[in-house]
């Protein structure tokens, strides 16, 4: 989909790192989270709250800020780095209110022709009675609908855990990037292991078999770039954040050059290109009609 020849992607860890190691790194509570990226990469951030129908979800935050000289809409799951903060942030597991806020802010971005930048960092959407009552499935689905048709460029980056529909809900982007020690999976390794191996303890094996690491997903063409972590991000946050900022900036500039924000016809092409991007993901064989 995009140029994958950038040398940054060739960076491989010196010692072999297992998929399960990546999972542990992705979940390290000291790993930088969305607010850390905002702090280092974004100026004049104004957080905007609420879904206008029920609540304000602190597990999925959003607002307007200046990134690389441009005012953009930024959205991201927010995990805590300690228990107290994790309770406030619901461990980064967003509720329907969070996805509805995201959708509202994406429409806001579209109205004012602001690009959208998202940071994916969740083990999955909140699985509780309350979230089910208030339409967790529909909230995620509507966010997908909105992103699929949004007439501004979107760049998504998986910075830690990208888990299930709760991650994809802010991941239908023109470019999808992953940090080297992030993972992106259809279900958590534990969940996959209990479904497929009937044993949650097989999570390390599931992590390996499910192909959830950045380099594997790049090979599949599902993501567009791997952002190297010369040291794991929780050991050198500044470097990881800076590299992430550089990568997002590069992709955003490419997108804006190809699809200028003032050009309605170009924005039609942008949405069509995003369609083609996701339309083409899948793996099947086709028998010629007998």
């Amino acid at each position, binding site marked *: 989909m995009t140029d994958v020849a950038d040398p940054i992607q060739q960076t491989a860890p010196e010692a072999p790192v297992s998929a399960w190691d990546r999972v542990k790194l992705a979940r390290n509570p000291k790993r930088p989270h969305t607010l850390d990226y905002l702090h280092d990469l974004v100026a004049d951030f104004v957080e905007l709250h609420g879904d206008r129908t029920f609540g304000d979800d602190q597990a999925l935050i959003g607002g307007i800020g200046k990134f690389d000289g441009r005012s953009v809409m930024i959205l991201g799951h927010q995990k805590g780095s300690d228990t107290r903060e994790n309770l406030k942030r619901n461990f980064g597991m967003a509720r329907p209110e969070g996805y509805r806020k995201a959708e509202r802010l994406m429409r806001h971005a579209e109205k004012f022709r602001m690009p959208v930048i998202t940071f994916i960092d969740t083990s999955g959407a909140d699985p509780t009675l309350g979230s089910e009552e208030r339409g967790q499935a529909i909230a995620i689905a509507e966010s*997908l609908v909105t992103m699929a048709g949004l007439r501004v460029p979107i760049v998504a980056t998986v910075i830690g855990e990208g888990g299930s529909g709760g991650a994809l809900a802010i991941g239908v982007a023109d470019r999808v990037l992953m940090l080297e020690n992030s993972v*992106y999976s259809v279900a958590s390794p534990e969940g996959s292991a209990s479904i497929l191996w009937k044993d949650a303890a097989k999570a390390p094996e599931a992590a390996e078999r499910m192909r959830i690491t950045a380099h594997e997903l790049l090979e599949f063409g599902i993501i567009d770039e791997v952002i190297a972590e010369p040291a794991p991000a929780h050991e050198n946050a500044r470097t990881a954040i800076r590299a992430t900022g550089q990568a997002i900036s590069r992709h955003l500039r490419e997108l804006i050059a190809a699809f200028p924000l003032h050009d309605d016809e170009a924005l039609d092409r942008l949405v069509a290109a*995003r369609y083609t991007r996701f339309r083409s*993901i899948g793996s099947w064989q086709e028998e010629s009609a007998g």
Partner: protein
Amino acid sequence: MRGFFHRQSKFQPVDPDENGNDQSIPDDLWVKCPGCNELLYSKELNDNLRVCPKCEHHFRLRARERIAMLTDVGSFQEWSSRILPQNPLGFADGSGTYEGRLERTQRKSGELEAVIAGEATVEGKPLALVVCDFDFLGASMGSVFGEKLVRATEAAIERGIPLMTINASGGARMHEGLFSLMQMAKTVAALNRLGAAGLPHLSVLTDPCYGGVTASYATVADVVMAEPKAMVGFAGPRVIEQTTKQKLPEGFQTAEFLLEHGMVDLIVSRDQLRVMTASLLTHYENARVVAAEASAAVNAEAHGEDIVVSFHSMAPERAPDSAQTGEAL
């Protein structure tokens, strides 16, 4: 309403050559109803669209059974039947390779994948139709599922016909990893195009419907119907109970629960689906076709002729609620 389909064969015969087996249920068995524990004679059950005559429990159906019940006899033309799954991850688990699993499932279910797509008519009205088969790996959504749905959507756009999806699913096709998750985005994006073409998507949620299907195309349709008591949600009850140690209330995640919480448009019992579908298709066709024609006619009318308006029904002076079609429950 019972016996609505008697004028067509109970179940439209499945071509036994295509998948190697005949899926109809033998008529001479006894079945225990999970709704009321009564023993039902399967002929009686089959004649009643596999709805328990005692408690209205809607038994699960195979995809081809649903197609037969819904569509005009002989009208269904299958699409994309030769798109076959493969193993992009090279996946294997405790029970062997994904390929092995697929082969066993294909043999057992008589289907090649978890959705059947095609074109049919309902009361003479054409539509594209995508139906989930829960017996195929829990109708989990993988690459073939997504591709068949997207192709059906694109064909609907090309032909200018509506799309109906009849949904049941346990969630994502785990064996295909992130390819599976991405089908959520892919299907929703295709359906955006259907909407932009002014064509409706009608969705029917049937028991059970969970995970990625519920969290993507199936719940953002123009009209979302559900079968009575169908279980529908994002996370399954077991996951929720394990995660939250919360006791879930009676009726949680049933179609009726969803209606009460504003998540579905209406609950349609199986014997009403055909007539409801035809009614909705007529309305959208009306809005599409009649609007333009009527505009012209009215233009003429506005310059002279008297307006004669006739309304369909003047019968009872006051209307009881229950007379309103679609006033579900």
